[in-house]
């Protein structure tokens, strides 16, 4: 069937030309995700490189043996940055805390017998991360001091080691990069089918049905073009993420290709479903916007699903984008192989969404257009 192949080639170049000439496609498909990613990278990933540190001041009003010992130890803790190397007065420390120049003021014991170690923090920051961390550090210090005082040797010790399923820790920029790629591909599908609404409104679908052109071939060429566009999105976003922000990717191509294909097809099927009952582009865009916005914030694109309120988390477990972004991270950051069960269950749920949307969409198209079978 060389005529079929020729027809397909012609249709594909037509779709490519139209996409290239459609400024909207470039803006929403490439430019917008890039801008969004760059913004999020700049805002949120700056602090993830350095370890925790907080600025504090130490008040030592009546130096004594105990306070001297503690001061020495405190000065060695790298997480605590001293505002001034020498101890300051209580008044000075209070002012700094009030003006939030320091995260906390530590008041050393006033006498050897007085064992109280005081911590002063700003009321506003009482629940803050820095306060919690400082409390933790001091708590440990006090415990050690107690143990030493009692002449005991610590038997147990806590060692923290972060664990992730891949060979390296997932850094926020990797998380965000893969999230943005998933979002861009999902939005490409959800918004992209606006062409169908336009073509139907302008009578182009009807016009094509009057020719011997195979509509299935036309649809296939359209999907091929969308897949190519998706690849461009992946490459451009990855290059910016890796080269511009130092994100690290560990790709496993077979998984990535599979996840990409299933995901892109599913989200396009959802767009197709929207197009089947939207008479105008405005109606379609409204639908696509609702779906896209809901998923954007509930599917763990910008922040992990676990950080959402408990009662909201089940919603994420229903949304297809949750599975798409998870699987994309598996295949792009953790290089997860095809043997992973969670990969397949995610693909299954995505495919289920896609298949349901497609079947419902084509039923609606059939019901609405007369003699669509011909």
């Amino acid at each position, binding site marked *: 069937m060389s005529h079929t192949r020729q027809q397909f080639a012609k249709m594909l170049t*037509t779709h490519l*030309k139209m996409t290239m000439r459609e400024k909207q496609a470039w803006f929403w498909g490439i430019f917008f995700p890039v801008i969004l990613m760059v913004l999020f990278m700049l805002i949120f990933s700056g602090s993830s490189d350095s370890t925790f540190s907080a600025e504090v001041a130490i008040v030592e009003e009546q130096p004594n043996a105990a306070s001297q010992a503690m001061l020495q130890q405190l000065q060695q803790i790298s997480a605590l940055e001293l505002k001034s190397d020498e101890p300051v007065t209580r008044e000075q420390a209070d002012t700094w805390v009030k003006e939030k120049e320091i995260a906390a003021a530590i008041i050393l014991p006033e006498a050897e017998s007085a064992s109280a170690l005081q911590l002063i923090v700003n009321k506003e920051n009482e629940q803050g991360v820095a306060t919690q961390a400082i409390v933790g550090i001091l708590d440990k210090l006090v415990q050690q001091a107690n143990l030493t005082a009692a002449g005991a040797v610590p038997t147990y010790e806590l060692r923290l080691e972060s664990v992730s399923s891949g060979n390296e820790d997932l850094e926020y920029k990797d998380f965000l990069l893969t999230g943005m790629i998933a979002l861009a591909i999902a939005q490409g599908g959800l918004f992209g089918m606006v062409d169908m609404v336009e073509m139907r409104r302008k*009578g*182009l679908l009807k*016009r094509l049905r009057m020719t*011997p052109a195979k509509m299935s071939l036309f649809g296939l060429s359209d999907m091929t073009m969308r897949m190519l566009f998706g690849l461009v999105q992946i490459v451009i976003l990855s290059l910016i993420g890796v080269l511009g922000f130092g994100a690290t990717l560990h790709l496993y191509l077979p998984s990535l290709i599979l996840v990409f294909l299933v995901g892109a097809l599913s989200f396009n099927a959802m767009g197709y479903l929207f197009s089947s009952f939207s008479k105008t582009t405005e109606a379609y865009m409204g639908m696509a916007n609702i779906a896209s916005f809901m998923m954007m914030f509930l599917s763990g694109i910008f922040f992990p699903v676990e950080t959402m309120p408990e009662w909201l988390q089940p919603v994420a477990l229903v949304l297809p984008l949750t599975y798409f972004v998870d699987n994309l991270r598996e295949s792009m950051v953790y290089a997860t192989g095809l043997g992973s069960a969670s990969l397949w269950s995610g693909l299954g749920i995505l495919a289920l969404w896609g298949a349901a949307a497609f079947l419902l969409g084509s039923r609606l198209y059939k019901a609405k257009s007369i*003699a669509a079978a011909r």
Partner: protein
Amino acid sequence: MAVLEVRNLRKSFGSVRAVEDISFTVEAGEVFTIIGPNGAGKTTTLEMIEGLTVPDGGKIAFGDRSWEQHANAIKMKIGVQPQSSALFDLLSPEENLELFSSFYSQARPVEEVLEMINLTDHRNKHVKSLSGGQRQRLAIGLAMINDPDIIFLDEPTTGLDPQARRNIWDIILRLKELGKTTILTTHYMEEAEKLSDRVCIVDQGKVVTLDTPSALIERLTKEREIRLTFIDEEEAAADAERFAQEQPSVVRTEREGTALQLWSVQPEDTLFALFGFTKERNYRVEQVSIREMSLEDVFIAFTGKEWRD
């Protein structure tokens, strides 16, 4: 030779009977025009013939081919320009033609079609920047890309300026020269009269009448409307009216001030007698006209509806 036969076509949408009973035969090489008021069932009839809508009953045959058995073969040999000129706006005329050309096993060279629709100079412009007339010409070009035997043009000139309309007439006449069969619908009577070999008037889903334009006009009563305006006072017009009423050829008269209208079955005789009378009385006539019967009168006579342009 009949290239298209339509018999007892019927189609309802819910409780609305769009097409009740339409039959006609189109001969090879003719321009066959379907006219009718809005909602008469023209577009539904065309869409059934074009294979977009399945009729509830009746028969459509392209020679010995039918939609049920030869859908693809029919699509290869017909060309359709739908009412809404459906074009790919982001492509150029040339690219539109090339794409459609790829749908058919046999196609006319794109170059030749561009020439025929006079878009060679605009071949690389994007369609969205073309004028209404240029777009419409391209839509017709797409309909003829497969060198079809039968071409359907659904209101090809609606909304176009007179020059653009004339350009499209030239294309239709050119197609006729090439021996193609054209099935046309239009809102312009002048166009139907000028281009058509036969006109089919459709109303309320039925064929009201079908014949050549001149035969249709002939078929109307021979009454002609004559208008006269007198320069002098009203009395002259009133006098002339009284004289006209005595003439056996005059059916009826109407007068408003110095303007006199009369309907005559023998307008030449009536005018001859009337001018004899006015000359004798020295009445001066400023304007005189006989209204030509047109397809529009035929339309009004058959459908009882005013034609809207």
